């Protein structure tokens, strides 16, 4: 790590609640329809410098990159509920690919491909199931 990065960076990653709160910085965030107090987050990728979270509200699924070398987290993308559910059923295409022993690649929908995930975070269940559970727990009970 460069000295400049050390000086510019943070000493720790943002907490789960801080990541959820950060969603309000999204260009797509709708304060009237999305309640962050009820949102949930799933950590999918972690290294010594980066963490990647998926945050689900009742309306959108957000992908947030937390890099401790940067001042604050970064919202990579978000997917609206209408693209996740079709006919009231979960229709988000999630596929994984091999990258290395410890890290895999996941495609989340048609537009968001090749995102790293840490295999050890999903030792008891698959990342596909974890994402589906995260989204359905937030959006599943609400009719489109």
């Amino acid at each position, binding site marked *: 790590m460069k000295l400049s990065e050390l000086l510019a960076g943070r000493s720790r990653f943002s907490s789960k609640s801080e990541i959820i709160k950060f969603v309000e910085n999204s260009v*797509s965030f709708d304060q009237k329809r999305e309640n962050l107090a009820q949102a949930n987050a799933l950590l999918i990728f972690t290294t010594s*410098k*980066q963490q990647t979270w998926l945050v689900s509200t009742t309306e959108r699924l957000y992908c947030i990159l937390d890099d401790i070398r940067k001042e604050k987290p970064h*919202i990579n993308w978000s997917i609206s509920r209408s693209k996740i559910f079709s006919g009231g059923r979960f229709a988000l295409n999630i596929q994984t690919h091999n990258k290395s022993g410890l890290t895999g690649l996941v495609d989340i929908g048609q537009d968001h491909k090749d995102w790293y995930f840490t295999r050890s975070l999903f030792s008891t269940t698959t990342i596909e199931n974890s994402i589906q559970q995260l989204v359905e727990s937030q959006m599943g009970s609400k009719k489109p």
Partner: protein
Amino acid sequence: MKFEVINAQDNEYAVVIFAAGCAVVGLLAVAGDLALYSIRGESLLGLKHGLKQTPILCVAWAGGALIFGYLGQMIHIFQASVLACATVGTAWPIVFKRVIEKASETEMEQKVSEEERS
């Protein structure tokens, strides 16, 4: 024979004792595997036993456990304990593979994209 947890602070020979213990467990592991192979025709360690192969396997397995146990202690991968000794002695090729895999994997960098309004 008295089994007890030793560490570098209490015993100046802790590392050597640990490494030797790993080698002994390695020998016992191959011997046990040979017994299983003789009785049931299968090897839990995935070894192919034979008159020539088994003595070589004993030396190689015990030697590998000795070296890996010694190096592992030197770089503090594990505590000097009977459990660690047994683990290294019986499964050092797997542990070794995992250590190399972990050490050689350069940290992946997640890409950054700009969120689009949708």
